């Protein structure tokens, strides 16, 4: 400790009359020639401004109970951590959940089928899956639009042709596109998991309109989406028991991938970046020591003429 302090501060700490430096600096201050009244005024102004700022900050941070909605707790997601990748078996189940449950109302229009290749499905599976959809294409050489089976290059078809149709079918509430929903919501994956699993009866005094449901995690509490995630809401292809929390966890993992498709690559690059920068830092430190060694090790001797 003493050694490193000495390295940081040099021999300054050991000097007896270090305080003299401060006095020297103050003689160069531009405020030296000011009248006493001006100095006092400025000091008061400074204190008042600082005090007001501190007061505003204290008022801001002390009142936290203004909202009625619950804040989602942080769950221990298996993709949390500097090195952790997605669990791709979970992503695959998540796609099943999206396809069988969410996709009846929510679009996923910025995800193309081909993006699932090598993430949740093989190429053959994706081709087969895409072909189950009818995609509008055209115009053909007669100038007409026509329907054709989907290809891996197509984007996932939306349940409604436009926002107005979606609103009309859902009591005026618009089911948002799910592609970037995890990034678009505060505390994304935890919020969506809590929302999906957090439906309950409205507390006394909360009046819901027709077609509204109560969810304490939704801002305002009244949400247009009914509870859709139940135990055994679907059967997973890989035999995983489809409890409500398992279904919600898998679909949220999948949506996190949809929002951050570069996730695994990013984690891989984190290792490389840490490695290469450690190396560069070491080299830089060595070079610094090398360059400074002549200066650090020289001794200046005062030899008066005889």
């Amino acid at each position, binding site marked *: 400790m003493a050694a490193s302090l000495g390295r940081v501060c040099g021999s300054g700490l050991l000097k007896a009359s270090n305080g003299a430096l401060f006095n020297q600096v103050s003689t160069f201050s531009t405020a030296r020639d000011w009248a006493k009244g001006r100095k006092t005024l400025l000091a008061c102004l400074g204190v008042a401004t600082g005090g007001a700022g501190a007061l505003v900050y204290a008022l801001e941070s002390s009142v936290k109970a203004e909202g009625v909605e619950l804040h989602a707790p942080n769950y221990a997601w298996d993709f949390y951590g500097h090195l952790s*990748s997605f669990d*791709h078996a979970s992503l695959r189940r998540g796609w099943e959940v999206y396809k069988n449950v969410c996709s009846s109302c929510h679009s996923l229009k910025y995800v193309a089928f081909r993006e699932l290749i090598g993430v949740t499905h093989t190429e053959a599976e994706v081709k087969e899956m895409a072909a189950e959809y009818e995609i509008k294409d055209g115009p053909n050489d007669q100038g007409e639009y026509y329907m054709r089976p989907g290809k891996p290059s197509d984007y996932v078809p939306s349940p409604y042709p436009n926002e107005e149709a979606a609103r009309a079918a859902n009591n005026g509430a618009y089911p948002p596109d799910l592609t970037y929903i995890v990034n678009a919501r505060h505390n994304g994956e935890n919020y969506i998991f809590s929302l999906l699993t957090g439906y309950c009866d409205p507390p006394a005094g909360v009046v819901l309109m027709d077609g509204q449901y109560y969810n304490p995690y939704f801002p305002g509490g009244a949400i247009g989406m009914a509870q859709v995630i139940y135990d055994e809401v679907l059967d997973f292809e890989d035999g995983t028991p489809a409890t409500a929390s398992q279904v919600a966890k898998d679909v949220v993992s999948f949506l996190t991938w949809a929002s951050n498709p570069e996730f*695994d690559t990013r984690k891989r690059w984190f290792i490389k970046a840490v490695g290469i920068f450690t190396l560069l830092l070491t080299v830089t430190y060595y070079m610094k020591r*090398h360059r400074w060694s002549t200066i650090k090790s020289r001794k200046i001797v005062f030899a008066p003429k005889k």
Partner: protein
Amino acid sequence: MLACELNPWQISLGSLVVCSAPEIYIKMAGIASTVYNVICRRSSTFALAIIAGTFVFERTFDTISNQIFDSYNKGKQWKDIKHKYEKE
């Protein structure tokens, strides 16, 4: 000159600049002087050594980093589960 005499083991960074005078590099230790004579004296071999070194370093570095990532995430990645879904 003086710096090189004091630190004859410094070949990697300073050798080209500092130790250019022949009487200095003769004094260098065995491996260092061999490396200097074979690689560093001609620009052609020096450039070649840098290119080859880069290639070897990058391959090694990438392999090690990827192995760390793959072993940390064993069983979670697509390549760990894809055999279940591939039909041949």
